[in-house]
């Protein structure tokens, strides 16, 4: 027994490796990558991520033995006054679950990227940037691991900002491309700054926690929450809502979701890894981690649930009006994140994590398959342009696709699996996780249930629309005509992810609830998940009806050509245009926040700073000069005048002295 315990504890103390293996990968690639060639770089990076995954698996196995987990301290980071912060790794079922998802999906995406980036760097004409991509990707894994393994709020914040940085770097990876040459760079900046707004909320929450709880350690803070909830409910409300602001930034919820669709400017593996599977779920993870605080203030829970539900519906509507294959998936991600956030708000944290995991599988799958489609289209574009000459179609526009099913059969199958999983069709993963959230809503909050069902309907509908537009019908462009299936390096990870998307429901299968029992060592579980047959059947029916409707609209009579209008454009009229233009939210922010800020900054910089403040200073200068100008007239330059004034002065003084007596 003792021996076993020793082995277990030594396993737990491996946890820093989940961060340091990717860091090692960065260093190796940074120092030697230039000499290694693409295969070498890709292997090092993938091995680093894979190593993290192996360590996570070992941790999980050790946790099976000892559910308590461990805290592994590394060093004291900041110790000033009352503030005493150390970098401590927290090993418990929740953090290890996240580690598994991050490193597992991450490793697959690393492998996929070797093939994808090989093509992409050549397509973009910068083969040397291959290495940089993998350094950034490893950096992301390291930062995400810091986030999920943190034992206090500040270390979590470190990871939180770290992944934001990676997101910035990777969105702007092709920083000289995009709309007007600056499109990608602008998208990256938008992502970082929007996230910073969220981080502002998180920072304030951290300050509030520190000064009212006296510590930033998770365990110590959570212990005190019940007492504080009694005495200062307003404080907890403030903390949780400020934290929610952070969540809306990172997890792309209303009102800060606007960066995520633009983030699709990054290479497709990035969209899959960071902007679908892992980073954007950090907000959900944060709320699950701090569930004790949310559960103590029902008001905040209500707000959270509504933010999530409305986002789910709103983003679903926008997704319906998009033509860019990645934009549809981006809005779908926002919508699904809304489901997770709503689940946390409903007190169904396990369902949120469940959906987080399955979503990571099928959304990564969808993005990567979309990437495969785009690669195929780019191939077709190049092959086609040989015959036709300089005619360029956007390889991401679904109106240019059609009939890809026959050209890229593997991609089609895996895409279909992903789409069905997302739509919530039994027996794919998404069905089970989404069902759990719907059950929680049904039991907790009827209006939210209705909103979520509507969102689920939209999900199935827009996925049906997408699959039908991309894969069915006839090719609507040369690129689509000449599209070609991608290489094995690309398709094998897809198949693995597809398998996970099929089997993912098994994580928390009704009746068995593995995940719930696993997480109950870490989380409080207010009500155990139930499987309610009518709801399950109902949601399945909703999804099926939506898909059938999508077939009626898009399948029976495919788009005639790339210029044809969407069949919904006419019946929905202006509403479809709104959806297509994303309800003008970006324009609204531009008009309400960005534009005025720019004007204000200009106003401060020129009229105020240069004009008033510097003007006052220079004004004093000129005042002195003009006064002196008046006084200089006294200096005639004639020595005799000066002599006279001295004489007169002496006389005046003498007169004063003599008459004073």
């Amino acid at each position: 027994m003792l021996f076993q315990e020793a082995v277990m504890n030594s396993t737990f103390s491996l946890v820093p490796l989940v961060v340091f293996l990717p860091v090692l990968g960065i260093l190796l690639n940074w120092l030697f990558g230039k000499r290694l060639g693409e295969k070498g770089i890709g292997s090092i990076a993938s091995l680093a991520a894979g190593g993290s995954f192996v360590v996570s698996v070992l941790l999980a196995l050790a946790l099976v033995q000892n559910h308590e987990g461990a805290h592994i301290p590394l060093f004291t980071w900041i110790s000033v006054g009352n503030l005493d912060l150390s970098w401590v790794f927290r090993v418990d079922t929740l953090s290890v679950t996240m580690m598994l998802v991050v490193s597992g999906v991450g490793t697959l995406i690393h492998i996929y990227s070797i093939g994808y980036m090989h093509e992409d760097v050549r397509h973009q004409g910068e083969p040397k940037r291959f290495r940089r991509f993998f350094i950034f990707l490893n950096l992301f894994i390291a930062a995400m691991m810091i986030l999920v393994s943190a034992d206090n709020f500040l270390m979590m914040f470190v990871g939180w900002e770290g992944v934001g940085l990676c997101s910035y770097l990777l969105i702007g990876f092709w920083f000289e491309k995009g709309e007007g040459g600056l499109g990608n760079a602008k998208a990256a900046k938008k992502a970082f700054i929007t996230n910073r707004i969220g981080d502002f909320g998180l920072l304030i929450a951290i300050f509030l926690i520190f000064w009212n709880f006296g510590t930033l350690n998770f365990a110590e803070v959570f212990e005190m929450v019940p007492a504080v909830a009694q005495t200062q409910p307003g404080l907890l409300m403030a903390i949780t809502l400020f934290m929610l602001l952070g969540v809306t930034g990172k997890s792309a919820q209303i009102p800060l979701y606007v960066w995520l669709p633009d983030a699709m400017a990054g290479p497709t593996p990035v969209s899959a890894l960071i902007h679908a599977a892992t980073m954007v779920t950090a907000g959900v993870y944060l709320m699950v981690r701090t569930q004790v605080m949310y559960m103590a203030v029902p008001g905040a829970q209500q707000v959270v649930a509504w933010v999530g539900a409305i986002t789910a519906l709103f983003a679903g509507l926008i997704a319906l009006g998009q033509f860019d294959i990645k934009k549809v998936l981006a809005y779908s991600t926002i919508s699904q994140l809304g489901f997770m956030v709503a689940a946390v708000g409903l007190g169904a944290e396990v369902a949120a994590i469940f959906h987080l995991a399955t979503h990571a599988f099928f959304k990564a799958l969808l993005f990567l398959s979309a990437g495969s489609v785009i690669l195929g289209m780019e191939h077709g574009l190049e092959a086609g342009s040989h015959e036709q000459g300089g005619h360029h179609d956007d390889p991401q526009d679904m109106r240019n696709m059609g009939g890809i099913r026959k050209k890229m059969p593997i991609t089609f199958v895996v895409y279909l699996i992903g789409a069905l999983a997302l739509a919530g069709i039994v027996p794919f993963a998404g069905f089970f996780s989404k069902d759990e959230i719907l059950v929680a809503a049904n039991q907790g909050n009827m209006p939210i249930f209705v909103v979520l069902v509507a969102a689920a309907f939209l999900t199935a509908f827009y996925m049906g629309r997408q699959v039908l537009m991309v894969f069915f019908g006839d090719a609507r462009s040369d690129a689509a005509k000449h599209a070609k299936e991608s290489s094995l390096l690309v398709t094998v990870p897809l198949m693995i992810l597809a398998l996970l998307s099929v089997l993912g429901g098994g994580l928390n299968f009704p009746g068995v609830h593995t995940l719930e029992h696993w997480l109950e060592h870490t989380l409080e579980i207010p009500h155990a998940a139930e499987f309610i047959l009518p709801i399950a059947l109902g949601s399945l029916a909703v999804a099926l009806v939506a898909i059938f409707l999508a077939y009626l609209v898009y399948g029976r009579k495919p788009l005639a050509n790339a210029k044809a209008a969407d069949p919904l454009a006419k019946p929905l009229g202006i509403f479809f245009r709104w959806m297509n233009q994303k309800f003008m939210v970006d324009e609204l922010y531009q008009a309400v926040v960005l534009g005025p800020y720019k004007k204000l900054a200009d106003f401060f910089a020129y009229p105020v700073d240069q004009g008033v403040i510097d003007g006052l200073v220079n004004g004093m200068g000129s005042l002195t000069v003009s006064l002196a100008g008046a006084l200089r007239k006294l200096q005639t330059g004639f020595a005799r005048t000066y002599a006279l004034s001295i004489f007169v002065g002496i006389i005046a003084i003498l007169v004063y002295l003599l008459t004073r007596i």
Partner: protein
Amino acid sequence: MPLGYFLGLSAFMFTVGVLGVILRRNALVIFMSLELMFNAANLVFVTFASYYQILTGQIFVFFVMAVAAAEVAVGLALMVAIFRTKRSIDIDQMSSLKG
């Protein structure tokens, strides 16, 4: 002789000196007027020294004479330097410090 005579002569000399400094333009004449003022002061010193029978005043006179001699040396040197560049010692022409 009454004290008043000496003081009157001193005052007269001083006034002449002041007027000379203020009214004349020739630098040499101004110098001489300055000397006149010094000597007016010296006369007062000597007068009172003999009146009160103390030596301090007389010693002061020596000081004044020494300083005046040094000052004249510097002043005349300046004068020569100015004359070399300007070919004139009219001090009204030396007004480059006019503001």
